[in-house]
């Protein structure tokens, strides 16, 4: 397998990114070169030497940077070893985009980290892919009202199995993690610095809580202190990992607004908690509403939005599988289900069996009752197929019709 060497290569890639001038764009250019099969080959000195000799239409700037990297190859290697060692010491997992359990939401977006570090229950990522995630962001010193709303919403969403993603800052972030850490959905914190670097230090209590029960993620190498310029990038990751964003409170100039605009740019819905117009720290949120944000009146609309996102995601994966809410085994996703999903992901929709489709239909109904037309749209199946399957499910007693909609009978 060469897991250790993979981990070293991944850390090498991070080291290159952190310590040489080879940035994201430069790397994209480099990947055009035939010699590089995956990004991991950057740790291969021979390949780098080949690139520096055969330029193959690379930009001069890029080639120059590769030569510079070759000069400092040993030093970068030392850094990589250090990262790898630190990760092991602190119990961090090095996750690569070549891994099967790389987050699905990041995989479908451009510009997400190829390698990141994770601490805690990594199975939350798989669970999140199945049941959705909501980013909850807001001010560092919120009003009682926003804090109360954050607590309520996070608990309700968490109980539905939806993961709460936030940034472990003071205020809203802290409240969001605290309220969701013990729910079914769990909590995920994305840090601006290294995953072992507790920032802000006063949040050590929840850092410990999250690393035990939730998940901590960072694209920065271990030991890295969070610099000012890292925060916007971190906000982008928060938006990217979740299926919609809840803005609980945001001043007119706030990092929260970055998260919201990233979310909107990624085609995800932004919900804003309404607040008084005379409360200055809420102006940013109200402006978002003016610009067409969704108003957050309760969790219903959020759940609608996430359930839509999940159905589309599932269509993209084309993998129904055994997806239910897991009342058994402490909200853990059974690993076999994920295996089924991955297997099915390779199957084209027209090759799915009726049983696969049935579980897809049941899955679509878990969050709320739907009518046959909506099910047709979600599954992209013709009506005659959907109606037949629904009748069979009805016959089995799994679903029932009410007010023209199909809902689960929970028996």
């Amino acid at each position, binding site marked *: 397998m060469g897991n250790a060497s993979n981990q070293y290569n991944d850390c090498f890639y991070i080291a290159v990114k952190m310590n040489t001038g080879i940035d994201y764009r430069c790397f994209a250019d480099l990947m055009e070169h035939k010699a590089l099969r995956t990004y991991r080959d950057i740790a291969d000195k021979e390949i780098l030497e080949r690139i520096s000799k055969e330029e193959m239409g690379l930009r001069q700037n890029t080639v120059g940077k590769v030569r510079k990297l070759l000069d400092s190859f040993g030093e970068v290697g030392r850094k990589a070893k250090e990262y790898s060692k630190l990760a092991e010491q602190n119990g961090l997992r090095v996750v690569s985009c070549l891994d099967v359990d790389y987050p699905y939401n990041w995989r479908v977006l451009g510009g997400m980290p190829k390698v990141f570090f994770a601490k805690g229950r990594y199975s939350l990522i798989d669970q999140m892919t199945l049941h959705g995630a909501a980013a909850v962001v807001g001010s560092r010193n919120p009003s009682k009202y926003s804090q109360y709303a954050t607590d309520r919403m996070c608990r309700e969403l968490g109980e539905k199995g939806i993961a709460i993603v936030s940034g472990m800052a003071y205020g809203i972030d802290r409240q969001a993690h605290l309220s969701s850490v013990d729910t079914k959905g769990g909590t995920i914190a994305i840090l601006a610095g290294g995953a072992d670097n507790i920032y802000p230090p006063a949040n050590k209590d929840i850092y410990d809580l999250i690393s035990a029960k939730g998940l901590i993620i960072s694209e920065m190498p271990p030991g890295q202190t969070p610099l000012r310029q890292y925060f916007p990038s971190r906000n982008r990751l928060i938006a990217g990992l979740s299926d919609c964003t809840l803005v609980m409170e945001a001043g007119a100039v706030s990092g929260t607004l970055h998260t919201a605009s990233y979310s909107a740019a990624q085609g995800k819905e932004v919900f804003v908690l309404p607040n008084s117009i005379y409360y200055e720290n809420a102006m940013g949120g109200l402006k978002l509403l003016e610009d067409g944000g969704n108003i957050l009146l309760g969790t219903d609309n959020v759940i609608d939005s996430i359930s839509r996102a999940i159905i589309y995601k599932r269509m993209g994966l084309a993998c129904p599988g055994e997806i239910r809410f897991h009342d058994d085994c402490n909200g853990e996703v059974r690993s076999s289900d994920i295996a089924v999903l991955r297997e099915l992901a390779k199957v084209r929709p027209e090759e799915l069996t009726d049983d696969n489709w049935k579980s897809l239909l049941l899955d679509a109904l878990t969050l709320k009752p739907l*009518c046959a*037309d909506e099910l047709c749209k979600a599954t992209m199946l013709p*009506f005659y197929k959907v109606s037949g399957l629904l009748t069979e499910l009805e016959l089995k007693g799994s679903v029932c019709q009410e007010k023209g*909609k199909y809902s689960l009978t929970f028996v």
Partner: protein
Amino acid sequence: MASRPNVARLYSCFATGTDAVLTLIEVSISPGIPTFSVIGLCDSTIRESQGRLRSAFKSAGFNMPKGHITIGISPAYMRKAGSGFDLPMALGILFASGQLYLPPEARIYAEGELTLGGELKGTPGSCIRLKTVRDMDFDYRIIPNGEAASAGVAGFIGQGVTSLNELSSIFDGNYYIERRFQFLRGIGSDDRIDISMLKGQEKTKRALLISAAGFHNILLMGSPGCGKTMAGKILSGILPPLNESELADVYSLAELSDGETPEVSCDRPVRIIGPGITVGKLTGNQVSLLPGELALANHGILFADELPLYKTEVIDFLRKPLEDRKINLLRHGNLYSYDCNFIFLGTGNPCRCGMLYEKGNKCRCSGPDIKRYLSKISGPFLERIDLFSEMRSISGDDMSEIYIGDKGSESLEYRNAVERCWQMERERYGGGYLNGTFPDGDIRNSMRIPSSVIRFATDMCEKGFFSARGFTKILRVARTVADLEDSADVTEAHVSEAVAFRMKGV
């Protein structure tokens, strides 16, 4: 000099209900004080013809002969009406008075109304009359040119004339030239709505397709403005055009009640009725025997808008015609029967506010309110409805796609599928029956339903999915679903789909 027969004989026809009766018209002229009498239970339209004849003769250069003119129309015991007897009466007088030459032993058929200026006009009911006399043996068949369209639809052979003058060239100059009347098939109306307008309403689209393919009665329910009325127009667009005999049926009734000759169109009729409808308007006029909405919808669609608002008596009345596909009128002890073989398309709101099926909790009606609202549509009536679908307002996304996207021709594909199904069904049953109209009885064998599938359906029936009376309904719909798939036998999957269209969930 022409021979002067004492009595001139001609044939004409009059329509009662959907039938026509051949009549013999005899004209005799004897010397005496001038009189003019028409006998044989004629109504005043026929008796008034004296005035029209007198003036028309003068305009055309003939004379009203002096003497006793007696015109007998037989069978004398039947009540007759209509100005169509003008032309045979005029011809009879002209023959009897020797102003025109009556070829010996000639059988002459004539009809048409005369104007004071001597021109000929068509009269209502011509299509029915011409259809009846089409196959009878006549030497001369003369009709007004105004009835050419009806004659074309009826497949009538004869000569059309526009004025009384032309008759002298026919009988004195032997210019009688028979021809088969042709008609121009209308290309059908342009304002048809394509089924792609129902984007996002997959259940309703499918229900409409099945309804058309098997001639099944259908009920659509949804909020105001979700496109229920549009669905009616869409349904007519996916039905195959009328064939010749159906066209004659439809045209003859339309022509009977409209008076003026309507355009010949192969579109199936769509009769739209609203909550103000009465039983009388549905059945037709008992006195004049003019057909009502039910008969006019024959071979087409009876579109009952806002069904839950109808009077209870109307809904209950509809049960029988929906079952028999026939409506009877009684006049003077005679039974007149009209076919009413149509697709019943009912629409309505599912509750008082209409929002029951909408997204979210928009409906403000309480459970008992909803029950009360729908209880008007009685159970036995619903037994005659094969398909049910709920409709919802079209979402914004779909709406913009409908209007931005190019005008689809999805209806055409649907129509082709329906046509294929009809062909299969007619071959299977014979007698022009379709799945929805095939009489109850040995459905299992004639519809080719294996016993395992019957057991599957019985199982569902026992679990309370539908009543025993709804059983055959489900099998009929399943048969159409199978036909749409080109499947020889009905399978369990077909039954499963049919079950999804039952009315449920109030």
